[in-house]
Every structure is written in C-alpha cells, then in structure tokens.
C-alpha cells in the first residue's frame, strides 16, 4: 500500500478485522519496545537482518493482533509476548524429573509410600517424553512493517517485513 504526504502511521492506528483487530504502533511507541528489547524469534531476526543488509527502511511500524474492541481499553496485556513455550516445557519437564528424584529420597523415610519412587520417576520420565502442551497465554500475531518514501512521487510505501505467531 502507499499514500502521499506525511507518514500515515505517525500515530497509533487500529485496523478493524472480522474476528480480531490489529493495532499498529510507530516503532518508537510500541509498548513492547518501550519495556525493553523487542523479542524476535531467531528465524524472523535472521529475515530482518537480511532485509537490513539490502535496505534500511527509514521507518518501522509494528502491528499486533488484539481481541475485538480491546483497543478501547488498555491493549498492552494482549500485546506483551507470552513466555517461550519450549522454555516453559523444559522447566516443567525438569521440575517433574526433579520431583521424581526427591520422591526416591523420601520413599524410605515415609512409611507406606513404597510406590512413590516408581511413580515419581515415572512421572519425571513421562514429563521428558510427553512434554505437557499447556500454553500459558494466548498467541498473538505481531507484524513488522517497514515504510519507504519515494522522493519522486512523495509517497510512502509500506511493506510487511516479517510476521509470526508467538
């Protein structure tokens, strides 16, 4: 897309959708970026580095998918990325395995719980093999959009540089 004159996206813009809305922030005012470094998945980071090696877009905008009408309040809770699923699963699996180890130690002390070590160790192994698929928060769809101004026509051109689902 493109338009003439000043950048359309100097302010926050809401793009309504059928089931969800998109909220677009200029790079400097993105709530995630204001809290600290913007987390990019490795794959998307590589993609953007490739883009940067070819062209440095003078303006960056970030679009986030949010629940319908949530932009009327504070959409930040829907924008903050969830914890990395792999790390959460790893923590849960290690926790199960560690609990299994400790139950082995407790078994001789606690009478009547002879089956605890087997159950605990089994649960730990199951935690490793069948990693729990709990997803803590709703996945969002950020998009990184680059804008280029064409001097000849004095128009801004917008390009979706990368996008992903958390």
């Amino acid at each position, binding site marked *: 897309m493109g338009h003439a004159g000043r950048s359309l996206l100097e302010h926050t813009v809401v793009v309504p959708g059928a089931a969800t809305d998109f909220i677009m922030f200029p790079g400097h005012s993105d709530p995630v970026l204001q809290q600290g470094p*913007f987390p990019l998945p490795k794959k998307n980071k590589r993609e953007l580095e490739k883009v940067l090696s070819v062209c440095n*877009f003078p*303006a*960056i905008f970030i679009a986030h998918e949010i629940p319908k009408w949530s932009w009327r309040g504070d959409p930040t809770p829907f924008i903050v990325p969830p914890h990395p699923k792999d790390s959460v699963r790893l*923590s849960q699996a*290690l926790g199960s395995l*560690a609990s299994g180890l*400790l139950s082995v*130690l407790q078994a*001789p002390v606690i009478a009547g719980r002879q089956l605890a070590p087997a159950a605990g160790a089994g649960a730990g192994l199951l935690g490793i093999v069948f990693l729990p698929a709990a997803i803590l928060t709703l996945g969002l769809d950020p998009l990184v959009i680059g804008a280029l101004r064409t001097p000849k026509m004095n128009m801004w051109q917008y390009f979706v540089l990368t996008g992903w689902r958390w």
Partner: protein
Amino acid sequence: MSIDLAQFMSKTSVYENLPVPFSPALRRATWWGIGLCGFSFLVYLLMFRGWAGSWDAERVFLVLGNQFNSIVSWIESISTLLVTLGLLGFIGGLALVGWTHGLKQGTRGWHVVAFVVVAMGFCCALPFIWLITIGAINLIVGIVMGIVMLVFGLAAIALIMAFMFGAIGST
C-alpha cells in the same frame, strides 16, 4: 518520527532466550536440593571426619549392623567427593538463587542449572538415606522385639504369680 530498521534491530533480543518463570515443581525441588547439599556437606564433614569411623554399629544394631558398617566405610572412602559435591551444590544453588532473584525466572540455562543442583543434592543425600533406612529398620525391629519381650515377660510374671498363689492356696 518512527525509528528506522537499523535502530529497531539494535533494540531487539532473541525471543527463545527470554527468561521464563521457574515451574513450581522445579522451584520447590531446587530449594530441597540446596538444603540437601548444605545438610550433606555439614553431615559428611562433621560426622565422617570424626566419630562415625570408630563407631561399631554391630554392637548397637539388632540387624544389618555389618551392612551399616560397610556403608559407613564406603562413604568414608568417598567422603572427600561427597563433601566437595555438597559444597559445590550449596554454593552453586545460592548463586542461582541470587542470580534469579529467589528462583523467580531465568533463561533455559538457569533451569538446567537448577536441575543439576537438585541432582547434586540427590547424589549427596542418597548414601545418608541408606544409613537412615538401616537405622529405621533397627528402630522398628527394636520396638517390635521390645513389645514381644514385654508381652512374654508379663505373661511369665503372671504364670509365676499364679503358680505361687496357687501353691500358697493349696497349702
């Protein structure tokens, strides 16, 4: 005006390396692991460098005294390793707690370190648990034998008294 792509890239991090909260089970187990490492360090340092080696369990224990002595001898032979392991686990665990602000959250590497601390505590405490198990077995056997002896003793006293009163009554 918005930032450009180069500025944006300089303000990014890798999503997969973001710190995540420790799972409740791992947090609880890590505290246990640190405690076990510290406890084991003190026990092995104080106990097996001192009186435990000269203590003969066979004279005190009713059963498995020989096995107890064997385990104590084995632990004595590897006590340096266990003391070192306990100390490293304890110090490492404290460093982990400090670095993660009380095991609140950390990157994947810190979660693995937490599990290693638990494993070190497990390895340190396992030999000691065997000794406690043998001690508990002896305690149970001692209580059972005490009850049996008490019952037999009371029965014997009752028989003797019955015999005596019977003998007195008959005269």
